[in-house]
């Protein structure tokens, strides 16, 4: 077996083992439970949630914001690292592209789940009011889905052609599908030139579209005159947070895939070290924005903002606030400062910490503000003064997270998670036209 064939054998998708099957089964169970809850929610209305007149955005919207933030990983790794010529990105970009696509699809789903009347979804387009940031969101999310798909698909073409050939004798049906999806890729100069040019365009597009997506998401909050949201810091704050959430998710998924698929030769400690440094940088930037967001209002906050900040720092939300700040940001920074902390296993733990911190961070951005209006909450039941998600909300949210993981799992099952063609070229296993590739 040649080195090239060995490479294909290593990187070609494989059938799930026992662990993979159990994993997929668990995900399906969670998704089915969520689906049943959602059907019940549609039948009975949003009264099954704990969202009421004041906490009208709850866990669904915070989950949506988390998905939007995590989808930024495509822009953060693929585009930024490509445009800055960081060649170490090669083994992790495909995984980043998959996460990006899965998350932005689920962001779209989650926003629909939050709608009281999902049957009126079309009205968002038909009666769109361009002045509303919600309309901008409605425009940018499908745009990001298309772009994330193209970002994944164009670099896949050569690999799909390789898989077509690889599966020709052993799995003819798969081979046929890979052939169709590879769009008759032969690796001709013309094809490579078109592909290379297209990828370059996408890489350039992904950055402004990604920043627009994060910024619009931030503007959904900051254009409202609400305590905790009415901040000019929000756009940059959300974008820097998206870097952290996206990289955290990427590191976690990369570690698991590396372990499950035994890809230690391809995704090495060096790659983890680089990812860790990148995460460290983004965490530091995010800390800076957090200081701007929370520290400055302590000096000049009006009474209402003071009540809000007190609830976050000392009050009802202090546990979640300090969890997201310390567990999700400060501790990861401290761990990542040390070389040992940038090894795969500690980094995996840091990745999980960052993802959990990022998820709860979105929750405390969304909910406490709604429960701190300018006019006091009066004449409503006591339970409306507080919000904690109902069982329906937890099950549906759990299902969206499980569906994201299922999408990633299915991509991992049927697509090469590390670009075969590019690795072969980098290792000099193929005669390539360098000019076309660059």
């Amino acid at each position, binding site marked *: 077996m040649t080195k090239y064939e060995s490479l294909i054998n290593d990187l070609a998708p494989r059938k799930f083992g026992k662990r993979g099957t159990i994993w997929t089964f668990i995900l399906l169970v969670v998704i089915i439970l969520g689906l049943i809850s959602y059907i019940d929610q549609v039948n009975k209305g949003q009264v099954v949630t704990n969202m009421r007149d004041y906490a009208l955005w709850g866990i669904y919207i915070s989950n949506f914001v988390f998905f939007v933030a995590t989808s930024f990983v495509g822009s953060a790794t693929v585009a930024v690292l490509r445009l800055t010529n960081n060649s170490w990105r090669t083994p992790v970009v495909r995984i980043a592209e998959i996460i990006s696509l899965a998350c932005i699809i689920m962001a779209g789903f989650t926003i629909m789940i939050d709608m009281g009347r999902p049957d009126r979804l079309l009205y968002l387009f038909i*009666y*769109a*009011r*361009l*002045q509303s940031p919600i309309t*901008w969101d409605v*425009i940018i999310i499908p*745009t990001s889905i*298309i*772009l994330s798909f*193209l970002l994944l*698909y*164009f670099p896949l*073409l050569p690999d799909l052609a390789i898989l077509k050939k690889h599966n020709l004798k052993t799995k003819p049906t798969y081979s046929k599908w890979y052939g169709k999806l590879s*769009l*008759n*890729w*032969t690796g*001709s100069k*013309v*094809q490579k030139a*078109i*592909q290379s*040019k*297209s990828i370059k*365009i*996408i890489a350039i*597009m992904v950055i402004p*579209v990604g920043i627009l997506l994060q910024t619009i998401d931030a503007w959904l909050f900051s254009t409202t005159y609400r305590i905790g949201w009415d901040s000019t810091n929000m756009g940059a704050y959300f974008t820097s947070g998206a870097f952290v959430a996206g990289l955290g998710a990427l590191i976690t998924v990369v570690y698991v895939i590396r372990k499950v698929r035994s890809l230690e030769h391809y995704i090495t400690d060096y790659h983890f070290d680089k990812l860790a440094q990148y995460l460290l940088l983004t965490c530091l930037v995010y800390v800076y924005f957090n200081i701007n967001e929370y520290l400055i209002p302590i000096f000049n906050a009006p009474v209402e903002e003071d009540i809000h900040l007190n609830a976050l720092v000392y009050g009802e939300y202090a546990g979640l606030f300090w969890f997201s700040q310390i567990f999700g940001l400060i501790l990861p920074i401290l761990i990542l400062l040390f070389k040992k902390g940038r090894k795969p296993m500690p980094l995996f733990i840091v990745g999980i910490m960052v993802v959990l911190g990022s998820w709860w961070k979105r929750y405390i951005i969304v909910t406490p503000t709604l429960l701190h209006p300018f006019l006091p909450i009066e004449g409503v039941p006591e339970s409306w003064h507080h919000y904690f998600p109902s069982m329906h909300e937890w099950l549906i949210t759990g299902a969206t997270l499980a569906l994201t993981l299922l999408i990633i799992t299915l991509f991992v099952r049927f697509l090469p998670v590390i670009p075969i063609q590019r690795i072969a070229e980098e290792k000099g296993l193929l005669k390539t036209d360098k000019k076309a590739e660059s």
Partner: protein
Amino acid sequence: MKNRSTSVSAFLAWTIGFIFCLGLSNIYAQNDQKHRVRLRADYVKIIEGDAYLNIKATAKIGDETLPVPNIEIAVYNEVEGEEIILGNTKTNIKGESRFVLNKSMDLKSDSTNTYNLGISFNGNDSFRKASKSTSFKNAHIAAKLITKDSINYITATLRETATDSLLAGKSLILQVQRLFKPLKIGEELNFTDENGSIQVPVEEGIPGIDGNLVIEVVLEDSDDYGTVKTIINAPIGTPIVEEITFDQRKMWSPRNKTPIFLLVVINLIIAVVYGLFIYLIFNLFRISKN
């Protein structure tokens, strides 16, 4: 000695028991006790407008003074020991009621030209009966706007109606009607001179709808005359210029009034991005054909 100490103990026990029972009976008696209603009646007269009684009913329940809503109050005119019923009124949720004194009621005064009005509540299951009386003489404020050396003044003269005598040394308030609270103008207290008059300059620049100011001259809560108020419409304010953005292209307008710059910018971005998408999808087609 032992007997004596037993007697003392028995006496103490009995005393404590008695006091305790007394306390208990007091508590139960409290529960059965009706609350006392406090009534208040203030006479208000608007010149060339209504005259009415502002009635308020409160009760001290526990440590709090609370309004007494929905109680029926009778209003009567006391003349030479006789009570002539004028009508009934009911307190609202705030424990308040306004009883308008119509001209048809033909109020009668006593020999000193004083009108004596009374209000009474007959009591119910929760509250004891209560009554309150108020007395007032009829007074009149004649006010007008004058301009001297380009300065606007409000002059007002206060007189007692029955005797047509000018009232000196009375404090009048000048204020401009506003939505939440009147805007006071001039001095805090403007005492009438020996001619029963005041003259107060009105400063420039007070905003009013179409430049009109509704100025009130008020004799407030007088012991002899109640509250007497006259209203003057004075076209001396600064017109309020309302910036009406209805039907304009603004960020808060309806969808068919989207600002042009927003339409251009967003559609331009959409056109560029989706134009590139079409180009990229076309490139996929080109790849498949090569």
